[in-house]
Structure formats: structure tokens, C-alpha cells
């Protein structure tokens, strides 16, 4: 009897423990609705992401068998292919940009972007957010909000930055809103993530329409992404315009992260320094209201 009583007590204690743990987890979730508390966990998340995302060292066996050397050569060749693909994408976007520049005289071209190429170590297509984790962070020169590209085109934007890792929110994510334009038609719209491989175009103008199969580029509006990056090709499905994402067609497991466009804030309106009133002193007399006085009062009125 005593034994069964003790067993019942233990069982009760375990139930209470389970209840406390579940309640604690729920409290943790609810507490994160406050940005201050949510931000408190960001360093912990980035630290663990660093651990997950950091590349593993080459094993001894790989060095002995020569596998490491072969893999290094493959990586070099892949880098070259990636560079060439980047130049191809750059050429397409430059042609579009050039057209815009030609219509504006005396406009200087933009310098090519410098970036960091990183390997994708973790892919999350989960229900919460479509993100990937790349094994380069602030120590390698990635900056917050950096734009990620692969051989196909635009991949996404860095939303969390660790020392050795970056979490990239994909353009295919539902909450991703990307201003785009048709390469041929020039029609502008907002692309929203639909599923893993496609996006849907919203806020289309009523007067114009996209051309089936044309390439869609980032328009650069909003300042989060540079103008002219390849996003995908447009197709019609019923009344909707969908974008087949180019990043999925050439995914090799690497991304290039470039600095986001810098938008210089306009200077505040120049304040006109106050002109001190200069009293007109007539020869050998006290200051008197001369012809300058009405001019000064008129200037004050104008201000």
C-alpha cells in the first residue's frame, strides 16, 4: 500500500513537472510577442546559427586520400562558373539599366558590387519562414540587410547576422514583398512569395500588362534591393501573374551576398542665418531709423 502510495506521489509529481514545462514553454512563446524580449534571444540564436553554419574542417582521411585536393579544385571551378553566371546576370541587368541611363543625359554608371560568396549549410522550408543559413557572417564582411544572389538570380535578404553565419529570408517567403518590373514591358508590380518555386504579382497597373515569358527584374524601389537583379520569368495562370523563380533553376548550394543599396537621406533644409540688425549711425549723432530700417523689417517679414 505504502509502495503504491509513493508511486502515486511520484506520478503526480511527474504530471506537475510536465504541466510546469508546458506552461513555461507557452509563457516563453507569449513573452516573445514583446520585441524587447524577442530581441533578447537574438544573440543566442545567432550564436547557435554560427555553430551550425560554420564550415567543418577537412578531415585527415580526406587529406591523405587526396580527396581534399580534388574537392578544392572542384570548388575553384565552381567559383569560376559562379563568377561567369554572375557576369551574365550583370550583363542582363546592365542592358536594362543602360536603356534607362540613355534616356537621361550626363549620368554616371554605377560601380560593380563587391560581395562575399558563402555555402548554404542549412535549408529551412518549414511552415514558419523560408530561410537558408549561409556560412559567412560579419567577420567575412557580410553586412546587415545584404542582398543574396545565386547563379539564377535574386535569392533573398540577410535578416539575421552572426559572426560566421547569415540567415537569409528567401524571396519565396510569403511575407516577402519585392518591387519588380518586366524586362520588356516595363510594367511594375509587387512580387509576393507563393510557394517554394513561385511568386505572385500584386498591385499591377490597370492600363498595362506583363508579357508572357518575359524576365522579371527587381525595380529597386523601396531601397532594399538594387535595381535590375533577375528574379524570374513571368507566366499567366488564370487571372494571376506568377513568377517562376530563377534562383530555384540554378541552385548550386552557394550564394553571393552583396551590400544593400545605400540611400542617402536628403539634407535638412538649410537654415538661413539671422542677419543682425545694423543700426545706422548718422555722422556725429545718435542711432536713427534710416533707410536700412524698413529694409530690415521687410526681411523679417519675409522670414
Amino acid at each position, binding site marked *: 500500500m505504502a509502495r503504491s502510495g509513493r508511486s502515486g506521489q511520484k506520478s503526480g509529481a511527474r504530471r506537475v513537472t510536465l504541466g510546469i514545462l508546458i506552461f513555461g514553454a507557452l509563457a516563453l512563446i507569449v513573452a516573445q510577442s514583446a520585441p524587447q524580449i524577442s530581441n533578447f534571444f537574438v544573440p543566442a540564436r545567432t550564436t*547557435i546559427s554560427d555553430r551550425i553554419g560554420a564550415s567543418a574542417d577537412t578531415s585527415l582521411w580526406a587529406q591523405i586520400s587526396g580527396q581534399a585536393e580534388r574537392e578544392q579544385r572542384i570548388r575553384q571551378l565552381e567559383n569560376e562558373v559562379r563568377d561567369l553566371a554572375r557576369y551574365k546576370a550583370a550583363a542582363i541587368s546592365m542592358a536594362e539599366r543602360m536603356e534607362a541611363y540613355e534616356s537621361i543625359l550626363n549620368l554616371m554608371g554605377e560601380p560593380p558590387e563587391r560581395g562575399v560568396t558563402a555555402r548554404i549549410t542549412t535549408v529551412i522550408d518549414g511552415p*514558419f519562414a523560408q530561410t537558408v543559413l549561409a556560412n559567412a557572417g560579419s567577420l567575412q564582411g557580410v553586412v546587415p540587410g545584404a542582398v543574396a544572389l545565386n547563379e539564377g538570380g535574386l535569392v533573398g535578404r540577410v535578416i539575421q547576422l552572426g559572426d560566421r553565419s547569415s540567415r537569409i529570408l528567401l524571396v519565396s517567403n510569403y511575407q516577402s514583398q519585392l518591387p519588380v518590373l518586366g524586362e520588356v514591358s516595363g510594367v511594375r508590380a509587387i512580387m509576393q512569395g507563393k510557394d517554394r518555386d513561385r511568386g505572385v504579382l500584386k498591385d499591377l497597373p490597370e492600363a498595362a500588362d506583363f508579357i508572357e515569358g518575359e524576365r522579371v527584374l527587381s525595380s529597386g524601389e523601396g531601397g532594399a534591393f538594387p535595381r535590375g537583379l533577375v528574379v524570374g520569368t513571368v507566366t499567366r495562370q488564370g487571372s494571376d501573374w506568377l513568377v517562376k523563380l530563377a534562383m530555384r533553376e540554378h541552385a548550386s548550394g552557394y550564394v553571393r551576398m552583396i551590400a544593400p543599396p545605400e540611400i542617402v537621406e536628403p539634407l535638412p533644409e538649410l537654415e538661413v542665418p539671422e542677419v543682425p540688425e545694423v543700426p545706422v549711425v548718422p555722422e556725429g549723432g545718435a542711432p536713427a531709423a534710416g533707410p536700412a530700417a524698413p529694409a530690415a523689417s521687410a526681411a523679417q517679414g519675409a522670414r
Partner: protein
Amino acid sequence: MASGNRKRRTLWSQSGPSPRLIFGAAIIAIVGVLGMTPKAFFGIPLAWPFAALWGAIGWGRAGLSLRPMLLLVAFGLMQDIVSNAPLGCFAMINLLVYGLSAGIADQTDGMRDTLVAVVGPAVLLVVAFLLVWGFASITIDHLVRAWPLLTCFITTGLVYAFGNGMFDLGRRPGESPGGS
């Protein structure tokens, strides 16, 4: 005749709950780590299972115990970080499924009935699916697509159907070997 009826004693059948718990946790950790890499089979993206749910369902069958709870919390927090979910979300789902599994086992006398053994995990997976889907929808302010998530849960269920023995702790916590 006697030798025919005698059960074959394997290393697994002789091992206690602790080694089995460690083995199950290792399986979950390995599957979880592999799940973080890009997953495609001849170009087809694979629906990766929620491995921690195997532990929650399997370990729950032996009744409530502290060590599985702590392991499930740890796995849940890792899942939260990897999938960019709010911290505590998967920990709570794992614990709820674990508690429900223990409750079902308690009510059905350790799931000796085949029907209960099949329906129980299926119900638990449906509950887990609804919880994950609900949490994800609430977190990102719109109803998330159910099909990709459902495929992951189908994979979880199918793998559990074949490998549930790996998450069987053998006896209830505190129960002596061979004791009732």
C-alpha cells in the same frame, strides 16, 4: 517444445530504459542534423520528418518521466532555432504530444491492442500537425500552406511505423526489470 517457445534474447531486449533513451535520442539528433542540410533525391525535394515526435510518442508510452521531458525540451529549442520559430514553440508541442501519449498509454493499458497501437500514434501526429500548423499560422499572421507540412508528418508517421521499437523504453519509470 520448450526451446520453441523460448523468446530470443537480444541485446536490445535486455537493455534498460536508460540505454534505450540514449539510443533514441541519438537517432533523433542524427536525423535532426541531417535534416538541416539541403535534401533532395534526384532533384525531388524530400519531406523531412519531425524526428523529435518519434521520441515524444514512443517515450510517452512508458509513462511520464523527467529525462525524456528534458530531452524533448532541448530538441524543441533546437527545432525552434533551426526553423526560425518562436522559442518554446516546438518544445511545447513535443511536451504536449509526450503528455498525450502517456495519457493514452495509461488509459489503454500500455497499448497492447493493435488497433490502439496504430490509432494512438496517428491521432498524436494529427494533433501535432494541427499544433504546428496553428502556431505557424498565428506567428506569421496568415494561414500557412498545409500540404508541405502534411507530407513531413506523413513521413514522420511512416518512419515511426517501422522504427517505433527504437523509441520503446521497455518498462515504466521506476519499474524493476521483470516486475509488474
